[in-house]
């Protein structure tokens, strides 16, 4: 039963991307389809979607590759725990990604952006009982999360610039933003967000770290989807920011450095999956460079590369997954001569690698051609960087095919299981890699009509002037292409020394994860330090802290006021006497080392207060004060017998006493000043007049204070009584429970 239900659930999750793919295909009418529903109109956040060339390319890849990955996972994850939640998360991720590329509202886009971060976090940490998985998932989360927050700031500023969050409106109003102070900050924030998501140097390392995930996840997230989100965003905002110099510089530089450095890092790896991961970084670098150039040729090269990369990289990841499943390892040192057993995988690997290396007539070749064309007309350094990056890719492609599949068996080689009996395991990669051949050979015209032209229209405001062709005659680009292939092959000859050199080099340089870990560590150290400082656990420190704050606020207030109140010493002798007596009593309590003296003096203070109330016409208060004071003193005398003597606690240091004295003194002084200020003006008499007037006729009481208590402000009294009752309940339970504890 459970099995049937699981099958139904899994089947429907495989069906969903297919349905969505069909939906995208049939809804889309070139050049543009728009859909919209209200969500939060007051904040200008609505469910607006837009299908144009760019988003259709991405949507197609997301759903298409999504379908194949789901199918592949059915076979790959067979027998693994939590299959249902794996497929579910994959589906959720796909939906978020789809939303991201279709959203026509930058905040809606952000919503999906963050959802991809969250779902990818859960996917990366799928093997969650391993510490490394958890650590890498967190690393990906923190870096893309930080980027996401920067992006939010950037998008908010952009929204303010355009006075709208609607993407198409923002693009429409685009040329007018440069003069605003918001413009450059918003660009910087958006770039940080996009670079973090698309794993650009120096934030590139989370992507290889994310390889802790099962292979289908890598195949999906790191070929067609997650990492392309940043590229997508950059492509989308090209019309907004593309004109600025900062855009070109930063994208070019980030892309080039990422491409070169990650290419070298890829060559240094021994784990085939990691090698692929780093080469993903390389491709992302290439894409960012192309968007930085931002010309028509560059954009078409980027579009071609996006499709090419999705096909071959997803396929290659799946092939590595097959290898892993067959042998239990991905270390190429242990892999040799897989071809006889994994023949179909070998074919897929060869086709994929050819596209990766840019071998004609693959999609990879096509994109490389256009890349060189775009580069050749901009800058010689750019071109050199492009060639160098592509040479590295060729070498990588060779390593990927030659090392595991060819060669002779020896005793280091792992056992190979014939896993290709599962059709679902080899069909998706074969199909994907072959698409990289089929599309340029058969459907190039359609690809241009459906994708490239509308995308150009969306990004640059005009269609591509020339048709995309496989053969455009002998030109600089072709020569560079050939040069690249040859150099790559040559470099492969020197692979072993190069690898050793790179191992030594990367060992000497600081690497991303370490720097990240060190920063995180520093933040946590700072956090512990500040917490120890603020939350040190010593109560007298807390009270001192609190009163210092009070004193500081009051001093600030008095300073801001400036005015001195007028004093009037019109009191009678006995009033002075009482006042001086009270002050004296307070001083005695302060100084006395004896509890008994203190309590007696406290009682004295209470009775003096009673006297004051009596003198100034408050008989009720005076009586109450007297009774309360008596009872308090009785209570404290009873309780005090059980408490340790005053000298059981060390006396505060001289310095501490001075601090305490000045803080307390400041507060006292400020309060005196404030009270003098208040009492020097006359008091509004309307309330007392009212009470006097209505107390007897309506409330039937001659004691106005009592009438206020039980009638005018009876609600206060109600609360007050509740306080007393609850205080009693609480106090009683403190003692009672203790007694029980003692007996046990």
């Amino acid at each position, binding site marked *: 039963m459970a099995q049937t239900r699981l099958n139904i659930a899994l089947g429907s999750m495989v069906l969903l991307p297919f349905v969505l793919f069909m939906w995208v295909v049939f809804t889309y009418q070139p050049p543009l389809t728009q859909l919209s529903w209200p969500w939060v109109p007051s904040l200008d956040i609505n469910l607006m979607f837009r299908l144009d060339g760019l988003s259709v390319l991405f949507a197609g890849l997301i759903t298409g590759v999504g379908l194949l990955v789901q199918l592949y996972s059915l076979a790959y994850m067979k027998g693994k725990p939590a299959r249902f939640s794996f497929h579910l998360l994959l589906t959720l991720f796909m939906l978020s990604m789809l939303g991201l590329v279709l959203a026509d509202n930058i905040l809606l886009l952000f919503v999906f952006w963050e959802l991809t971060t969250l779902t990818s976090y859960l996917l990366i940490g799928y093997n969650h009982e391993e510490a490394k998985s958890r650590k890498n998932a967190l690393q990906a989360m923190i870096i893309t999360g930080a980027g996401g927050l920067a992006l939010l700031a950037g998008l908010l500023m952009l929204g303010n610039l355009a006075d709208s969050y609607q993407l198409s409106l923002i693009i429409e109003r685009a040329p007018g933003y440069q003069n605003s102070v918001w413009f450059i900050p918003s660009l910087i924030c958006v770039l940080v967000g996009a670079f973090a998501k698309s794993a650009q140097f120096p934030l590139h390392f989370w992507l290889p770290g994310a390889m802790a995930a099962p292979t289908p996840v890598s195949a999906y997230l790191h070929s067609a989807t997650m990492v392309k989100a940043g590229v997508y965003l950059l492509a989308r905002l090209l019309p907004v920011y593309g004109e600025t110099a900062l855009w070109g510089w930063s994208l070019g530089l980030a892309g080039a450095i990422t491409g070169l450095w990650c290419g070298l890092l890829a060559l240094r790896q021994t784990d085939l999956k990691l090698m692929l991961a780093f080469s993903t970084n390389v491709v992302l670098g290439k894409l960012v460079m192309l968007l930085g150039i931002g010309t028509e040729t560059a954009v078409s090269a980027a579009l071609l590369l996006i499709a090419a990369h999705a096909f071959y990289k997803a396929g290659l990841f799946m092939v590595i997954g097959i290898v892993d499943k067959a042998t239990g390892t991905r270390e190429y040192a242990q892999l040799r001569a897989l071809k006889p057993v994994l023949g179909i995988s070998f074919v897929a690997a060869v086709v994929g690698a050819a596209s990766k290396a840019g071998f004609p007539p693959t999609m990879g070749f096509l994109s490389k051609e256009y890349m060189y064309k775009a580069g050749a007309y901009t800058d010689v350094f750019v071109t050199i960087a492009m060639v160098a990056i592509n040479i590295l890719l060729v070498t990588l492609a060779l390593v990927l095919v030659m090392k595991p599949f060819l060669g002779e068996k020896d005793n280091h080689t792992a056992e190979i299981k014939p896993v290709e009996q599962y059709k679902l395991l080899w069909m998706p990669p074969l199909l994907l890699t072959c698409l990289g051949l089929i599309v340029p050979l058969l459907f190039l015209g359609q690809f241009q009509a459906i994708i490239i032209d509308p995308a150009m229209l969306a990004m640059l405001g005009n269609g591509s002037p020339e048709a995309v062709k496989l053969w455009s005659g002998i030109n600089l680009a072709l020569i560079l292409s050939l040069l690249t292939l040859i150099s790559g092959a040559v470099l492969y000859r020197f692979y072993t020394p190069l690898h050793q050199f790179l191992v030594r080099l990367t060992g000497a340089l600081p690497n991303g994860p370490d720097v990240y870990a060190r920063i995180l560590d520093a933040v946590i150290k700072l956090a512990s330090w500040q917490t120890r400082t603020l939350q040190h656990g010593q109560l007298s420190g807390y009270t001192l802290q609190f009163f210092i704050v009070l004193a500081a606020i009051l001093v600030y207030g008095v300073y801001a006021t400036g005015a001195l109140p007028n004093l009037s010493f019109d009191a009678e002798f006995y009033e002075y006497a009482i006042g001086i007596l009270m002050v004296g009593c307070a001083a005695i309590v302060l100084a006395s080392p004896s509890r008994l003296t203190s309590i007696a003096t406290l009682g004295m203070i209470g009775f003096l207060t009673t006297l004051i109330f009596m003198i100034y*016409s408050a008989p009720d208060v005076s009586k109450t004060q007297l009774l309360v004071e008596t009872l308090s003193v009785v209570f404290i005398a009873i309780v005090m017998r059980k408490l340790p003597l005053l000298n059981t606690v060390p006396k505060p240091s001289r310095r501490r006493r001075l601090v305490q004295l000045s803080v*307390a003194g400041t507060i006292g002084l400020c309060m005196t000043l404030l009270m003098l200020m208040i009492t020097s003006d006359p008091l509004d008499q309307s309330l007392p007049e009212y009470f006097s007037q209505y107390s007897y006729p309506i409330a039937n009481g001659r004691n106005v204070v009592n009438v206020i208590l039980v009638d005018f402000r009876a609600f206060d009294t109600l609360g007050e009584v509740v306080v007393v009752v609850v205080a009693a309940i609480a106090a009683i339970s403190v003692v009672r429970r203790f007694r029980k504890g003692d007996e046990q």
Partner: protein
Amino acid sequence: METLWSIVVGVMLGAGIYLMMERHLVRFIFGLMIVSNAVNLGIFVAGRLTKGNPPLIDEGALELAEGFANPLPQALILTAIVIGFGLLLFTMILAYRASTEMGTADLDQYRESEES
């Protein structure tokens, strides 16, 4: 008169607050009692002082005699005294309980639960 009592209230507040910052639980309670008194007195003084004319309506009269003392602050203080009394009782018994449980009245040693 208000000048005198404003100063007294200030001094009392200062003294009470000084005691509330001490380490000994009992000293804190002393401080609490002084501050409570000072605050009540402060409310009283801020509501203005009147001598010899309590807010009681004489037999036969319908309202208070001219120049009566403001009854409102008195009512407020009554409420505050009662609430303060409740809190004080609870605090004292908690203090007893705490010092017995912890074996000391030194507030700075009450930090076990914050060390983790």
